[in-house]
Structure formats: structure tokens, C-alpha cells
């Protein structure tokens, strides 16, 4: 088969696939969302929900809190044990000293 003929054949295959897939998608759009999604999801691959990437990066805790997005590193075992968030630096370890300090 000549190169031009080959290219034409492959292009035809691609375009017919493209047209066919688009027709399937258009048909699915007329079905119930559940039916439509089932067909697409079978071709989508493996779902991955991430760990925390789907959580918002911004909160409004003055961005200075000592937990979560604004605070202690997770390796600090929730602010306990290490010194990273204690005393002058931040999180209470058990809160026992803290309440009423200023009251």
C-alpha cells in the first residue's frame, strides 16, 4: 500500500472513530445521568480521590493556627511530643496550662 493510501486509511479510521464516539456521547446525554456515566466511567480508567488535595488550601483562621493547613507539620504527631508548636511557638499539647492564662 502506498504511503498516501495508508495515511488516508488511517485518517479515515481515526475520523470514523471520532464520529462514532461523539455519537455515543450525544446519545448518552439523552439518557439518565446514571446510565450515561456508567458507559463513560468504564472507559475512564481508575478513579483516584487523592488524599487531601481536594480540600481547600485556604482557610480564614488568620492563617496562623497551629493545625491543619496553617500549622504543625503532620510529622509532629498532632502537635504532641515534639517542640515545634509548644511554648512560645504554638499549639498547646494538652491545653492544661493555657485556659485562663490571660483571663
Amino acid at each position: 500500500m502506498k504511503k498516501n493510501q495508508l495515511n488516508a486509511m488511517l485518517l479515515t479510521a481515526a475520523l470514523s472513530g471520532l464520529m462514532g464516539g461523539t455519537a455515543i456521547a450525544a446519545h448518552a446525554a439523552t439518557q439518565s445521568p446514571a446510565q450515561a456515566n456508567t458507559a463513560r466511567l468504564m472507559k475512564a480508567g481508575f478513579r483516584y480521590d487523592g488524599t487531601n488535595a481536594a480540600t481547600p488550601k485556604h482557610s480564614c483562621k488568620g492563617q496562623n493556627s497551629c493545625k491543619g493547613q496553617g500549622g504543625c507539620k503532620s510529622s509532629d504527631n498532632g502537635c504532641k511530643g515534639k517542640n515545634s508548636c509548644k511554648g512560645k511557638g504554638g499549639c498547646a499539647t494538652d491545653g492544661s496550662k493555657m485556659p485562663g492564662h490571660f483571663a
Partner: protein
Amino acid sequence: MSAGTMSLEQVQRAMAAAVMQPLTEDEQMRSTAADGRSMAAIAESLIAPNSRLSSFERLEIYNRQYWFRVLGALAEDFSALRAVVGARAFEAISVAYLTEHPSRSFTLRNLGSKLPEWLAQHPQMAGRRHRLAVDIARVEWAFVEAFDGAEHDPLTAEQIATLDGGSRLALQPHLRLLALEYPADEVVRGLHAGEKRQASEAGIASEEIEEAPAALPGIRRRPAWVAAHRVEHAVYYKRLRREEFVTLRCLSEGKPLADAIAAGFAESRLNEVQTARCLRAWFANWAELGWLCAPELELLMEGM
């Protein structure tokens, strides 16, 4: 110079430099700045003490919170990388990366955008798992981009009817194509599932477990081509054949349709019939998933 004689711009530059300076090993503010000046003197020139805290201690609050915040944000987006290299190495990677690439965006969402590329250029940071670590970072960053990337209208039947070999197409903006040396998509999914299981069994937050590098039995270098994309607001990793990947990548680079197909199969061992069958099936799948779109106007103009 004291803050009284500094302009607002000078104050902000001085404070930003202090706040963004890496912490000591035990997570305190360093005693000297990068230029050798005393941090206590810098703090005193900027910050007034109160009855409980010195200038140094008050500035240190912001220094520590800066690092806790950015390290936390990076750890959220690259939890599998953290598991693969271990918590200690991940922290060293994060500090070195953020020192070289502090945030240049109003949103923390973009904080890790350069990490995969940076890690590829710093093999010493990830030890013997370096290539795997780079692949993991790329897979995890692709998730972030697929999660909230734009979604354009896919090609319509009317648009498809006008296409020929010289047509240029665009890919869905949330679609990310990855050529990997390791099956890192499987590793990421496996680690995530394991983390969730462990966390739920132990009744603790997933980030509180596994400080040492995770065991990865049977992980072997084996090329994988992956598309990270979004369907109905959820992110999926779809395995591709190499030919499929190359064709899509060429389309995303703006190559004409016929050229993209030719490039995709240039090194293929498939015969003509198999190639035609693959193309028909792949283009049908891509259309069903809404991956192919009309290119932006600029690209069209460029091709004219």
C-alpha cells in the same frame, strides 16, 4: 537600619526574608540570617517586644507558621511522594524546593507546580528511589491539575465533519499526559488505599502514620503511559498505549491530525490493520470522554 528609618517596602522585604528563612533542625528561628547578621538584631530593628515575648520570639512565631503552613500544603499534595521517600527526606526535599521556589502565586494551590521538575534535577534528594520519586511527584501533580482544570466543550459532530489530515485539535485542559519510567499511578493508588485502611483501623488521621519510607514489594522499572483526567468531577488515571500517548501528545502540541497519527505510530510494531483498528477505538474513546476540543483561536491562526 531601624524600622523607623526604613520605607514600607524595606520593612516588608526584611520581614519576608526573616519569615521565609528555613528553621533550625529543632524548628526554631535561626540565630543568624543568610548574610551573617544576627536575627536578634534584625528582629529588634523591626519588632517591638512585649512583657512576655522578645522581638526575636515574636518574629519567630511568623517564621515557624510560614514553614508549618507551606510544608503542610506540600505534604497534602504529595502524600505518596512523602510515603515513598519517608517523612525525613520529604521534609528535606520540601525545604530545599521551597527555598529555591517560594510561592509566586496568590494561591497555595500552585505551590508544588515546579516540584516534579525540580526533583528530577536534584537526584541526591531522593536517594535510590529518585526516578520513582520523580514519577510519583508527576502523578500527584497531575491529580491537582486534573482536579480543578478547565473543561471546554468537546468537538461536535458538525465540527468533526469538517476535519481532514491538516486539522489541528486541542485536548481537554484538565487532561494531563504522563510518560513514566515506573507504574507510579499504581503506586500512588496503592499507597493511598493502604493509608486510608491503616488510618481507619488505627482510628487516627492518615498523616500521622508511616514516617519511614513505605515498603514497595515488587516495584520494578516498567514504562507506563498515563492520562490523568476528570469525569463528573472525579479524577481518573487511564493507562494508554505508547502509540496512543504519542498521538495525543502530538495533538496537544498543535501538530496536524495526520502528522500526529504518523508520529504516534512511527516506531510501532503494529501492522496496518491493527493500527487502523486501534485508531478507530482510541478516537472513539477519546470522543466519548470528551478529550478532543477545537483549538484556541491563536493556534488556528498559527496554522494558517
